[in-house]
């Protein structure tokens, strides 16, 4: 069976959930081979094996010192050497770029923001803010496919996770854009936005930079916190929590929108959520059209009552 390369996403050595989803998908297509960059593969191996990785390719940390291009060189090299059937990455902003460059190198094609892939590599997309579903495939070469987190459930299946070190001779072009500093903003204890099963977002209706009404509800549900662009632009919540067309795309089991009107650019980032709940005082707000359950009312009344009720029922 041909190998399917899966670029691993990790935070401080911890394998992210989306990688376990990608490994699950890869098993439909062929034999999953995880691609790990940097230190820590030994500790992560068990997790990769648990979701079916037969191989773990380990590349040097130096690849992370430059923007995107080294990862594409690595993936293109591995795809060639191992005659891979496909390359799967998560559909984050950075990995989509990796996917694009890799496909150029391989003379193949790239499919981004995919929500499902069949055994014969037909990919499903949800486009135009979730209103249209398309199926597409790459016509030549090794398909490079960027899959959205939370698209399919991860299912364990033991793999051998045989480790193999890979070296890459980076080209000068790959070293042209050097990362000289990394600035991480406070992350806190909440689950990561794109991976969370539940997201609670606040918009302009929150009314101030006191986001506790949103955060308290999120914490009662073990959810991540998101924000509309209006809330981010007002300086009420940090940029990396923006949901929407120019923010993050989320696809949780449950999305709760507090004081968000539901502009098309916001919907583009959350419309594929499985269940949507909205609290908005305006009965005409477009968010109600896509909600499974809407309350027309003041979020400052409704959300604290909901939080209390959830905490009571625990």
């Amino acid at each position, binding site marked *: 069976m041909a190998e399917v390369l899966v670029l691993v996403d990790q935070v401080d050595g911890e394998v992210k959930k989306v990688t376990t989803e990608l490994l699950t998908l890869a098993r439909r297509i062929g034999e999953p081979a995880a691609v790990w960059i940097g230190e820590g593969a030994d500790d992560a191996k068990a997790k990769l094996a648990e979701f079916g990785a037969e191989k773990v390719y380990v590349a040097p940390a130096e690849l992370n010192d430059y923007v995107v291009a080294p990862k594409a060189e690595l993936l293109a090299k591995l795809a060639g050497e191992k005659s891979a059937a496909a390359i799967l990455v998560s559909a984050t902003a950075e990995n989509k770029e990796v996917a694009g460059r890799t496909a150029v190198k391989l003379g193949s094609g790239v499919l981004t923001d995919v929500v499902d892939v069949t055994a014969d590599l037909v990919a499903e997309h949800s486009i135009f803010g979730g209103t249209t579903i398309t199926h597409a495939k790459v016509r030549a070469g090794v398909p490079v496919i960027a899959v959205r987190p939370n698209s399919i459930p991860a299912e364990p299946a033991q793999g051998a996770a045989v480790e193999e070190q890979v070296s890459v001779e980076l080209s000068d*072009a790959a070293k042209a854009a050097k990362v000289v500093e990394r600035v991480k903003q406070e992350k806190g204890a909440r689950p990561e936005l794109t991976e969370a099963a539940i997201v609670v977002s606040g918009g302009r209706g929150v009314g101030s930079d006191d986001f506790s009404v949103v955060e308290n509800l999120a914490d009662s549900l073990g959810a991540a916190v998101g924000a509309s662009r209006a809330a981010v632009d007002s300086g009420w919540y940090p940029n990396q929590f923006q949901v929407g067309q120019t923010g993050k795309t989320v696809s949780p089991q449950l999305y709760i929108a507090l004081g968000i009107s539901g502009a098309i650019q916001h919907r583009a980032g959350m419309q594929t959520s499985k269940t949507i709940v909205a609290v908005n005082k305006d009965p005409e707000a477009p968010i109600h059209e896509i909600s499974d*359950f809407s309350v027309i009312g003041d979020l400052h009344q409704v959300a604290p009552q909901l939080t209390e009720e959830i905490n009571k029922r625990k």
Partner: protein
Amino acid sequence: MGVQGGRPPAMNIVVLVKQVPDTATERKLNPADNTLDRASSDGVINELDEYAIEEALLLKEKHGGEVTILSAGPDQATDSIRKALSMGADKAIHLNDEALHGSDSLQTAYALAQALRTTEFDVVVLGSESTDARTGVVGAALAEYLGLPQLTLANKVDIDGGTIRIQRQTDDGYDVVEAQLPAVVSVVEKINEPRYPSFKLIMAAKKKPVTKLDAAGAEIDPAKVGLANATTETVDFAAAPPRAAGTVVKDEGTGGVQIADFLASKKFV
């Protein structure tokens, strides 16, 4: 950088501009060939491209030089080109060829790379994604084709001599990235606030030069572009199943409890 010696360095900045269907109108795919039905909705300049133009104008104001718009698209793209010129860009190149119809994002990046080879530049600026395709790969693919530094997802750009430094937006903050010019820069909307064209600039834009370029002029290999040679193929498409109409209740003091009941019915609590 272009000039040395007594004169201040001047920069040639090229901004990539794409005309896209207005997100406010209904967007459709064309059943005949599964490409975007551009006739079914109004064309507007891709929103993020306005931020790219603004950043280019700011760089020009700081460092001197010239801002050139490069747009690949059919005749209608002239609307977006005029809009870009009315924001203050100096001139434009319109890459327009029937052979390009149906090109996917990698093919478009290739075509743009070829077009860029016809002109001199220090920086290419583009929006980090378009509202229609939303693939977010064009900037990266362009850097790959041109063999230039990829400075994408920038929310801040600084140029000092031949060195360019950006803040690259990441999932949990930003990376500071440095390279030597020339470079490819893509911008996110946090970077600036695009200006509105003044009446004077709108009038002036009508007289600004727009150079036509076709595939042959850009030495684009016809076998590498267009629907027939696309690297990907849309097999089929359909309207997403409409979401079942939801329940809407007015809060009469128990709204929170009602949501809790709903969440319990769905096993979330």
